[in-house]
Structure formats: structure tokens, C-alpha cells
């Protein structure tokens, strides 16, 4: 945006009021956005007794990290009392390869669909894209049957496969929209230079892709990390991802609830994704600008 404050003849009261309004509005919005985080944080730091008396929108009178310690390493989930930590690491082990594989496949698809077009490439793309919009509840049962047939039901491998498969439409979309704006001449030059499909991809295209890789990885990582439905349906026991474990911790039918532990656990489960957004948020916007905006 043009620096309007640098225009001459506008240094008026009105302008100052305008600036104040802008900041005030931003502040109000920031409050709205931060409120759930505040509630979660303050609750996680309060002793249980304090929580049960009075409003939750209040600063803790007494701060204790017990809930955090318990949520991480001691809380009982089912018959195991190791807290969230094992699930946390396990989720990383499932999600990271799934993110990598789906991103790589999306990259290859996007590249093939834009730079090595074949008849019907648009149709193929359109059909793949529709996978972004399927309500996942509808495919749970057939997927279960399929995983069973493949003999990988209830394994991290099976879960990773499901993540990867339903991630492909998104990754393909992102990469395709980004690669459309890379000049075809580069591919022609590389072809004449003797580089084939993969050599061109590796030497020419991949080095140009970091912005869109960031967008894709963020999208995939948060999507997979936060998934509940697939995790609950296609994993078991110690193999459950962290969000499912969190749900097990938080949700009890007839047991006693420890809200501070619940919220500490919630925050712990959210740390990686929030971390990714905070660290890479800038690149996220940049990557969006670079092409995937076109949706």
C-alpha cells in the first residue's frame, strides 16, 4: 500500500483519529483471536479448585505448572499413564514422512501437469482436485475395508497412507498453480541441454520451489497433525496420534475431569503447528502471493 501518511496536506486531526481507529480495531480483533488461547493458557496454569469457582476469563491467582508436567508425562490415557509424550513423538513419525511424500508427489504431479502437458491433463487435474472436497466421513468404511485388505489396518503405515492419499489433491493444486507461472522456456532450454523429465525437475524446478513448498508443508503438516477422524478410525492404542490421545485424555464419560491438565495437554498438542505458523507465517503469505492464491 502506498504510504498515505506521507502524502502532503493530510496531517490533520482527522488523520490522527483515523490512525487511532485503525489500531483500536486491530486491538479488538487481536483480543478476539487471542481469547481462546488466553483461556487455555490461564486455565492450564491454575489449580483445579480455582478453576471450578468463578469465571474462566480471569488471570490465575496462583500459578502452577503441575498440570503441564502431568499432561506431558504422567496423565493416564487408557491403561497407560505416560501422558501425551509418546503420542507426540509418534505423531511426528507418522506426519513427517506423510508430509514429505505427499509434498513430493504433489510437486511431481504439478510439474507434469503444467510443464509436460498431455492430452486430458486438465481433466486429470480437475478430477484430482475434487478430492479436496470429499467429506471424509463418507469414505471411512470403504477405506477401512481397503486397509484391511492391504493388511495395514491399524498400523502407522496405514494411517500415513491415508494422510498421504488425501493430501495429494491439495499438494497437486498448490504446486500446479505455482508452476503455471514458471516460464515454459526454462523447460525447453533444459530439454535442449539434454535434461530429461527428472533432471529438469531436480536441477531447474526444485530450486525454484521453496515458497510453494513452505505453503504446502504448512498446510499439510497442520492438516495431518490436527486430524482427528482418520487418527481415531485408523490407528490403535499406542499408535494413536496426539490429537486422538488428547481427545482420550480430555473426554471421559464418567471419570473425574481435570480441566487444567486438559488444557495443558491441548496446548502441548498445538505447539508444533503454532510453532510452524509463527516461524513460517511470513513465508506463508509470500508463498500465497507467489501463486496459490488462485485457488
Amino acid at each position, binding site marked *: 500500500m502506498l504510504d498515505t501518511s506521507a502524502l502532503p496536506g493530510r496531517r490533520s486531526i482527522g488523520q490522527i483519529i483515523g490512525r487511532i481507529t485503525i489500531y483500536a480495531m486491530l486491538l479488538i480483533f487481536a483480543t478476539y483471536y487471542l481469547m481462546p488461547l488466553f483461556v487455555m493458557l490461564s486455565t492450564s496454569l491454575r489449580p483445579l479448585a480455582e478453576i471450578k469457582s468463578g469465571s474462566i476469563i480471569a488471570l490465575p491467582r496462583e500459578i502452577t505448572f503441575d498440570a503441564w508436567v502431568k499432561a506431558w508425562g504422567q496423565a493416564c490415557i487408557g*491403561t497407560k*499413564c505416560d501422558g501425551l509424550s509418546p503420542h507426540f513423538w509418534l505423531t511426528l513419525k507418522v506426519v513427517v514422512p506423510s508430509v514429505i511424500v505427499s509434498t513430493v508427489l504433489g510437486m511431481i504431479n504439478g510439474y507434469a501437469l503444467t510443464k509436460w502437458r498431455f492430452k486430458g491433463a486438465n481433466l486429470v487435474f480437475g478430477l484430482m482436485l475434487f478430492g479436496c472436497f470429499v467429506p471424509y466421513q463418507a469414505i471411512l468404511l470403504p477405506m477401512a475395508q481397503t486397509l484391511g485388505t492391504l493388511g495395514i489396518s*491399524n498400523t502407522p503405515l496405514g494411517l500415513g497412507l491415508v494422510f498421504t492419499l488425501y493430501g495429494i489433491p491439495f499438494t497437486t493444486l498448490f504446486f500446479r498453480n505455482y508452476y503455471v507461472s514458471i516460464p515454459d522456456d526454462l523447460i525447453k532450454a533444459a530439454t535442449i541441454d539434454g535434461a530429461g523429465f527428472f533432471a529438469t525437475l531436480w536441477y531447474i524446478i526444485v530450486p525454484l520451489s521453496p515458497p510453494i513448498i513452505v505453503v504446502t508443508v504448512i498446510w499439510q503438516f497442520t492438516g495431518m497433525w490436527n486430524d482427528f477422524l482418520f487418527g481415531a478410525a485408523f490407528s*490403535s492404542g499406542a499408535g494413536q496420534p496426539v490429537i486422538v490421545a488428547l481427545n*482420550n485424555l480430555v473426554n471421559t*464419560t464418567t471419570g473425574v475431569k481435570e480441566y487444567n491438565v486438559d488444557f495443558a495437554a491441548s496446548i502441548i498438542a498445538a505447539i508444533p503447528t503454532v510453532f510452524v505458523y509463527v516461524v513460517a507465517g511470513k513465508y506463508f503469505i509470500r508463498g500465497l502471493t507467489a501463486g496459490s492464491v488462485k485457488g
Partner: protein
Amino acid sequence: EPTLEVLHYWTSGGESLAINVFADALNNAGGKWVDQPVAGGGGDAMNTVLRTRVIAGDPPGMTILKGPVVTEWANAGALADLENVAAAEKWDDILPPLLSDIVKVDGKYAAVPLDVHRVDWMWVNPEVLASVDGAVPTTWDEFNTLADKLLEAGITPLAHGGQPWQDATMFEVVALGLGGPDFFREALVDVNPDALRSDTMIAVFDQMRRMRGYVDDNFSGRDWNLATTMVMNGDAAMQIMGDWAKGEFLAANKTPGEDFICAPAPNKGGYILNSNSFAFFDDPNASDDAVAGRELMASLLLSEEAQIEFTLNKGSVPARLGVSREPYDICGVRSMDDIEATLASGTLVPSMAHEMATSSANRGAFLEIITEHFNSDMSSQEAVELLVEAIELAQ
């Protein structure tokens, strides 16, 4: 090594300790317990997983199934045969007939009952009661009078959480109280349309409408244990909730009979029973270990030792008869006494709200209408009609 994979939704707090009793028992007996908890929605989430796993051809070894669902699964041919163990352990002798009826399909055991929860408890704060000179009500008229008095005194009479299953719990307690066990069976177990349309049913909905007035405004979506806390803290006088509520009092170091009172909700004799049972799934591809694990577990479930330890943690009482009452507090003892009494008089009824009475489709229809009614200004007549219609659709 006998191995057993257990799918369940008892994931935290006392539930988790309770199920650990069986896990330990199995592990100590040389088996291996493989835990697969899926919490949420009182077993809804677990049901989803169960479904996907069965469809995937990879059913868990054992899971929590209740009431008619056992029959549904058994009819689908998914459950393992337990006759050998049942005979060896003499289940027919040690289980009360109503319980064994529920878990038997075609005269064969399809699941093993673990415990008995009493649903129709009323939890009362004696101090609050004393503040209005009230006594624990034994009829719904008394209840209403007391509640009105409490309201006048500015006290919330009834602590309640607005979740469908809590609404339904209250409903069935009222239904038993106003209609008696026979009506309960006809309406909530057999879903007989005549019973559903009867005046008694209308009276039940009328009472529910009154109850709505005794509940504070913030009840919607509240967890049951927060409602219990209200009673504990004197913010409300009473709560109608199953015996698991006791765990919440105990966790706050309250003593039954002193700091809180457990009394059966007003009724004309009767006992709404909720029982958890374990069902074993039959997997044609199961390994020998899995089969061995299944049988080993089944044989351990009804041992007195495990029963006592499990129910103490769970807040319930044992499923089998003839267990020592010594370890139980007064609420537990009262519950055990009443089971025997109602068994004798034939007034023990299965809980509709807790999936003991009728198919999940029927139960869903009940919950839907009960909640709708409780949360709106629908008339009782209207509610009854909608209920009949919904039950028809669920067939």
C-alpha cells in the same frame, strides 16, 4: 503368550484405573493386554473405530458393548463363542438372571457383564436441604414441593448438564418414578406405541417440563461432573445421576452420608440398571495367542477379587452375586441391597439412556425427542407424537 487387544473408551481418571484392574489381572496371569482406548461421546467414537475395524477384517479382541448392541453384533456373527468358559466358570450360577439375559443371545453367552451401575440415584447436599428444612423426597410430588421451596429461597433445586444422555437419564428416572417398572418396560424397552402414546408418557413429559424450571440457565452443554460440583459446593441442592457421580464427591474428599446423601430417585420400587459388559470378537484369522488371550481374559473377568477392585474404582457394584459387601460404602451397599430386592420383585429395569434397553436407533430417537422437548417449549402432546413418529422411522 496369550494376547488380547482391548478397544474401550474408559480413558481417564477412575475409569482408567478400573480397566487397569483387568489389564493387570491378565498380565499377571501371563497374558498380554494391548490397550486401545478411544474416548469421547460415551463410546460413540469407539463405536466408529469398532465399525471400521470389523469392516477392515481386523476386529479387536475385546471391547465394551452394552445391552442390545451385544445382540446386534452377535446377530451379525461377529462375536466369539464363550460357552466353554461360561460352563467352566459357572456364569449361570453367579450372575443375576436379568444380567445374563441381556448378554445372552439364543441362550448362549455373547458377552460378559462386568458391573452394575444404578442410574436412578439422586445426589443431595444435606446442608442446602437443611437450609430450607427439607427432607429427601420420596415421591415426585414431594420433589416438586421441595424444589419450589428451594427456588423461593433462591437456590437452584436441580443441578443438570444439558447433554442428550443426561436429559435422557433424567427422563428415564422420571418415567420409572411416575410409571413404574411395567410402564418403563413397555415404553422404553419394548417401545410399544400404545405405551408411548399413553397418558403416563404425557405425565412424564409434563414432569420433565417442570424439571426444566428447576434447572439453572447455564445448563446447556455442561458436563455432568460440573453439575455434581454444584451440588458439592452448595450451588444446587440435588442432582439426578448414576452412581459414577460418587467418584466426583470422593475425589473431593467428601464422605457419603455426611457431606452428601445418595438416595434413590423417587419411585414406586424399581432400579434402573446400567451394566458394562465385555464382548469378545471372533476373528477367523486370529492367531493362537489371540484365542488364548480371549479365553484367559474371559475366565478372569468374574473373579471376586477383580470384580471388587474394578467396581470400587468404577463406582459401581459387582455384576456377580455373593460378593463381600465389606469394601463398599453405604451407597454401594444400598445399591447391592436394592439389586437383590428388585431382582426378587422383578422391578429391575435396564437403562434406556445408557443403551441397555433398546436398539441404538431407538435410543437415538428417544434422545432426540427428549432433548428437543427439554430444550424447547414443545408441548407434551407434541413430544409424544414426535416420539412415536421417530421410533417408527428408526425401525
